[in-house]
């Protein structure tokens, strides 16, 4: 009897630590954020005051939130296509190089930025972008062009930050595509080649459909990951400025919570971001999943 009971309980006991971790570190913070979003509390005062939708009204009426939302959209439009298309093409080129030493060198060199901390990468890029002493302006001036304020000009800063984030993050997607391309049976592309198909047609008609599960995964995670990727870069390089030109939703959330200590506003912002992410993910599945061939 006891033995049967133990064997019945065993699976639950095995998964219990994992479930506990998920509950404590994922769902509990969501619930706390939800509660915070309806309250005025600073963690120190013993009492939390219920304020209804006031925090949501304050956040949605905040011009800095509007700037963060607008910039997040711009960042996504700039970065998501680049972070999908360029790694895809690079991976395809690397597959063509086969298992040569040159291929290994390129793989390592291209992946290297991904493993460098933003604090280090940001410092390097800050020097490159320095408007008075940086390498980019030295080169521009030597070539006879006017120097630029890469991170200080409100019109240019978002592009400079995007370039840094792209450099720092494209390697992971490239690696995922590389694994997917490598898994394609060579006889399929070989047959197409014998039939006279050109490389671009082979890529588009044979290889891309075959790697569509990876492509779908990369698109979904890249669109969602843009905000995450930006936080470190913006914190190190611009602090959201100049003015509000490079801020974004996660940076806004961080500022609200850990710089201004407006935890109610931060809770409301968390809920708004969660709703946005939920909607974008749902839309991506709705639009793209039917085009994925799971083999």
């Amino acid at each position, binding site marked *: 009897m006891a033995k049967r009971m133990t064997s019945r309980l065993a699976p639950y006991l095995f998964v219990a630590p994992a479930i506990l971790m998920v509950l404590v570190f994922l769902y509990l913070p969501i619930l706390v954020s939800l509660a915070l979003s309806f309250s005025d509390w600073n*963690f120190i005062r013993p009492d939390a005051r219920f304020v209804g939708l006031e925090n949501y009204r304050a956040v949605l009426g905040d011009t800095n939130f509007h700037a963060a939302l607008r910039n997040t959209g711009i960042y996504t439009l700039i970065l998501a296509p680049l972070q999908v298309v360029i790694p895809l093409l690079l991976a395809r080129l690397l597959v063509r190089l086969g298992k040569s030493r040159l291929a290994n060198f390129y793989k390592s060199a291209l992946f290297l930025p991904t493993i460098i901390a933003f604090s280090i990468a940001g410092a390097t890029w800050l020097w490159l972008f320095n408007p008075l002493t940086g390498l980019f302006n030295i080169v521009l001036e030597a070539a006879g062009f006017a120097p630029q*304020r890469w991170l*200080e000009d409100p019109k240019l800063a978002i592009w400079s930050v995007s370039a840094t984030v792209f450099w720092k993050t494209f390697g992971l997607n490239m690696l995922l595509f590389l694994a997917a391309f490598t898994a394609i049976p060579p006889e399929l592309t070989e047959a197409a080649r014998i039939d006279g198909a050109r490389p671009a047609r082979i890529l588009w008609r044979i290889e891309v459909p075959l790697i569509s599960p990876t492509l779908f995964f990369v698109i979904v995670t890249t669109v969602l990951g843009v905000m995450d990727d930006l936080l470190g870069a913006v914190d190190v390089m611009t602090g959201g*400025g100049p003015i509000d030109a490079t801020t974004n939703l996660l940076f806004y959330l961080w500022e609200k919570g850990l*710089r201004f*200590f407006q935890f109610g506003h931060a809770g409301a912002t968390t809920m708004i971001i969660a709703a946005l992410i939920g909607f974008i993910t749902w839309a991506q599945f709705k639009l793209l999943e039917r085009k994925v061939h799971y083999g």
Partner: protein
Amino acid sequence: MLNTPLSRRQMMLSGAAAVAASSLSFPRIARASSDTEIVISSTWGQDKPFQKVVDAFNEMKLGVTAVNRFDGNYEEATARAVTSIAAGRAPDLMVTGWKFGYFARRTLNARDLREIDEARANAILANFQPSVLPLVTIDGALIGLPWAMSTPVTWINRDMWRAAGLDADIPMDITHDWLLAQCAKLDEALKAQGHPTYRSALDLSSNEWTSQAYIQNAGGHILSPTGELALDSAEAAAGMRAFAEPVRRGLWRPVDGQAQLNAFTSQALAVTTTSSAYAPLMNAQDFDIVARKFPRLDAARRMNSGGNFLAVYTNNDEKAQAALTFMEFAASREGQEIWSSVGYMNTSVHDFAEIPSPEAAQAQFADGLTAETIWPGARGLEAQTVWRQYVGRILEDQMSVEDALRAAQADIAPLIA
């Protein structure tokens, strides 16, 4: 021996023994010293003069052991303090930025030193110039040791000055118009020469601190002496017009603080107005740098200050008394002498033969300094960011000075209400 397998029972027993042994040994270590330990949350790591003050204090063996815990910049240290206090483990002392004055007192409950021990607090503060005491008096409570004070001054690369054919004998008291005229000449001369490192003449620092100095020097205020927002005054507009003038004239390409410092120390920038606390950095350069007073407008100069103070947050009486013991040393002649190498101004009544803080800063201090803007209200810390954004909009010519000040007044007023 290593190959002998352990049974489950042996494993359990040895584990229990290890736990028991460790729990017995820790109290013994703790009892080895009867000192009261105080943790100081600071913005300086082990290699900074603050650590030297802590080490010198600990060497005196006064029954109190101070521990310097580096917690990042002001914002990061304050964020940690919020979470520590929420968890019931407030830092005993914390290096607190001036701008966090209201937040420290009203939210973090920084202790009134006189409430801990009035006689000791008064004796500690007697080591400082009376003029700095209002800067650490918030809501009538004396909440800190005013020992880290800086003020914006004008740092000039005199090698470039000479290379441009300008008179290297630069007066201490300079005006805005004079400085701009010199910078225009310097820019023209060094560009014509094709100077190898020169890129820009001037940077007044694109932030809320130096813009406040310009507004005050024009006779205006950001917050009036009675605490009301005063950005919509004619004086504030005059100050901001002067502040933006070098940008309009092409003498200043606004960059962020770190780029500005890098440019100045690599001799790409000839003149910069920034904190006097950069004195050790400036003194370490191998070219001729001089510091002069901040550029004055037509009215009398009325400069602001910045920096931080040391505040007590612990509610434990024994630790609060121990914190005062540390403050007694920090305020003493010996403590101040070690501390002075950090580059802040000497706000104490003690005289030292040599300190890195420039003469220009000490002269401005002697003239009288106001506090940097300490934004009140539950959302006061946001107000600073909003004001900084409007300063940026003025410099970038996105808005006229008058429109930007009107909009700033309207946006900031509810935040500090």
